[in-house]
């Protein structure tokens, strides 16, 4: 497979996942505004969500007020925001267009329809659109693309590259979201485990569409330790760090098997090592270590794996 093709498949996966993350952020922000006002006001919630998407500074440069309209514009539509839903979908479709020969008809179809629908939404007056429409649009279409990929793509190296992209992006997104909620909202240790906390953790679970799953998995009260365990170490949770990384390792293993043990396997080895380090921890160890410190380490590891994917496969050995 051409290195450029692999690269586009990898980034197609990443951008689709990133679009979904952005839409989820928007959804959770919307939910918060519907709740009774907290002491700090929901403005700080919006702010933390912007932090999670890594674009708070950029938002401030362009918009004055943290209003729902501005945020919606920024997170969903804004082409100047590299992580906006519109940008991610367009980039994913662009990558797909470049490597159309590596996609099945259904996958291309799903991707192209997503883009055509996006263009329709962009032409619709904003007053006719509510947040739920935008988030539903995004999650249902990204699910369709993913479904088409899993149902129709050959289980070949291209499939592994797409899914490696999905996995790394998802691991990164969950880690960042956790980090922002912890670091921004709970900088002082005495708040950990306080009443304010429970509500904040709920928000995280909602952002990851995991609030129901959480109850099935644990039951009982929502506590910081349980939520963190669910999102970091629980192998059943689809967006947990360990699941995302486990699936990434599985796909990188697939590449190594396919290309033979003599081919470079730096990314696989690194991802395996990180997974083992993760498996060796329990949630108490992570809290002792410091959640923020742990997450910084993890985000760094994911970055390293991503770079190694590039070195191993995407430069074409020249």
């Amino acid at each position: 497979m051409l290195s450029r093709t692999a690269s586009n498949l990898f980034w197609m996966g990443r951008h689709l996942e990133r679009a979904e993350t952005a839409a989820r952020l928007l959804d959770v922000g919307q939910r918060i505004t519907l709740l009774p006002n907290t002491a700090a006001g929901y403005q700080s919630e919006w702010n933390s969500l912007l932090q999670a998407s890594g674009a708070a500074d950029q938002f401030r440069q362009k918009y004055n007020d943290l209003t729902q309209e501005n945020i919606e514009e920024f997170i969903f539509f804004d082409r100047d925001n590299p992580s906006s839903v519109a940008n991610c979908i367009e980039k994913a479709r662009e990558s797909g267009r470049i490597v159309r020969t590596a996609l099945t008809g259904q996958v291309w179809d799903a991707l192209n329809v997503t883009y055509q629908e996006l263009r329709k939404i962009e032409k619709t007056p904003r007053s006719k659109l509510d947040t739920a429409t935008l988030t539903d649009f995004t999650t249902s279409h990204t699910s369709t693309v993913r479904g088409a990929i899993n149902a129709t793509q050959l289980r070949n190296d291209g499939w592994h590259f797409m899914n490696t992209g999905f996995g790394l992006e998802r691991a990164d997104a969950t880690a960042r979201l956790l980090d922002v909620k912890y670091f921004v909202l709970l900088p002082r240790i005495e708040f950990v485990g306080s009443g304010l906390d429970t509500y904040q953790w709920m928000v995280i679970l909602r952002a990851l569409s995991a609030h129901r799953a959480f109850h099935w998995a644990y039951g009982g009260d929502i506590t910081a330790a349980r939520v963190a365990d669910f999102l970091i170490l629980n192998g059943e949770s689809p967006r947990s760090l360990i699941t995302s990384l486990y699936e990434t390792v599985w796909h990188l293993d697939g590449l190594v098997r396919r290309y033979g043990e003599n081919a470079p396997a730096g990314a696989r080895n690194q991802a395996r090592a990180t997974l083992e380090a993760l498996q060796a921890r329990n949630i108490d160890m992570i809290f002792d270590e410091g959640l923020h410190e742990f997450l910084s380490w993890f985000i760094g590891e994911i970055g390293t794996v991503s770079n190694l994917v590039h070195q191993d496969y995407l430069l074409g050995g020249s």
Partner: protein
Amino acid sequence: MVYYNEMFEGESVRDPYARLSEWVRTMPEDFRQMKQAEAEALFRRIGITFAVYGEGGDPDRLIPFDMMPRVFEQSEWRRLERGIKQRARALNAFLRDVYGRGEIIRAGRIPARLVYRNAAYEKAVVGIVPPRGVYSHIIGIDLVRTAKDEFFVLEDNCRTPSGVSYMLENREIMMRMFPQLFRQSRIEPVEQYPELLRRTLESVAPAKCDSRPTCVILTPGHYNSAYYEHSFLANLMGVELVEGQDLFVDGEFVYMRTTQGPKRVDVIYRRIDDPFLDPLCFRPDSMLGVPGLMDVYRSGGVSICSAPGAGVADDKAIYTFVPEMIRFYLGEEPLLNNVQTWTLWKEEDYRHVMANLPDLVVKEVHGSGGYGMLVGPKASKEEIETFRKKIEANPSNYIAQPTLSLSTCPTFVEEGVAPRHVDLRPFCLCGDRIELVPGGLTRVALREGSLVVNSSQGGGVKDTWVLSE
């Protein structure tokens, strides 16, 4: 002016169109609109769009598709086929000659200036004989019809003719929407084209290639207006679609960068123009090409289809000599005629053209896509005078042709079915043998009375049927 309508012979409908005529007559109005919308949705969904350079606007514009097919009888097609293949052989013989000994010039049949000082003549290719002596592997020959038995060649495209994806997709969509039409009529298939193209490319692999040849399609990238076609063909042929950045030269060969390291490439079907192929040989600022590619080509490490410099054979000035080439190289009389052409660098032609501008079509020698031309009968006085000044400034940049009474085909329009002007581009493949699929791209000028069929100027496309016996 009276135009030949391909559907009729006198007052009655010709045999090939009989079924279609009945089909249209019995078609409910809302059915047609529904199907037209369906066709459009299919095209958009598949992603067949084209962009027009420099016009801005929607980058994913659809080329208008007309559901009314154009039909040829088997006997009509056979005649065309013989003529097209003859022309393709002569064009390749000419290329081999002008990059070799130049016999046709020594014999005084073609002026040396038109060949050797032609912008498309590539010095870097002089003395090279590519595998099987083929320089142009895919030749698109644009034909127009003026009467039942009168076909003329409007121009030859020896470089990288585009449009074959429309030929294939138009058929695909027609078969999907109207299967009953195909059951009723026996229509020759065209879907073998990609397979034939792959075989043609493999048949011209360089001598240094000792296993099954690796072919690739080289595209300028996804911003190119024909990108859809490039990826479509690559997909159907099962070959990689590469950009310049995917290829590199090492020693005597060209390689592509893959996830498993470098892989050797034997045949490149390039869809980028000569000047961009190799920055070390042609334009140094080209980012689209592959540095060192021409060295490998010259030493027989890779085949490039079509060969750099193949464009010298399809120039509008050289065009006037193609019948001469057929006589010179093949010893045959041309089966397909050229359109009468005045070359403005000749004194008498110049006088004739300048005196008759309102009746003529004037084209730039190197122009394409319907740009930079004057359609005399359709132009205003001012437009004609402006163009006259351009010609005076540089006469040898122009040729002129009579306004042809292009044939029409029934076409769906707002009010129902009406005649619209059409042309035809069949795609001829040259490798170890010469192949032509029964069909081609029919372009139709959708504006009433318009003679310009280019997609950039409001033209659309139709499915083209060749009936089997």
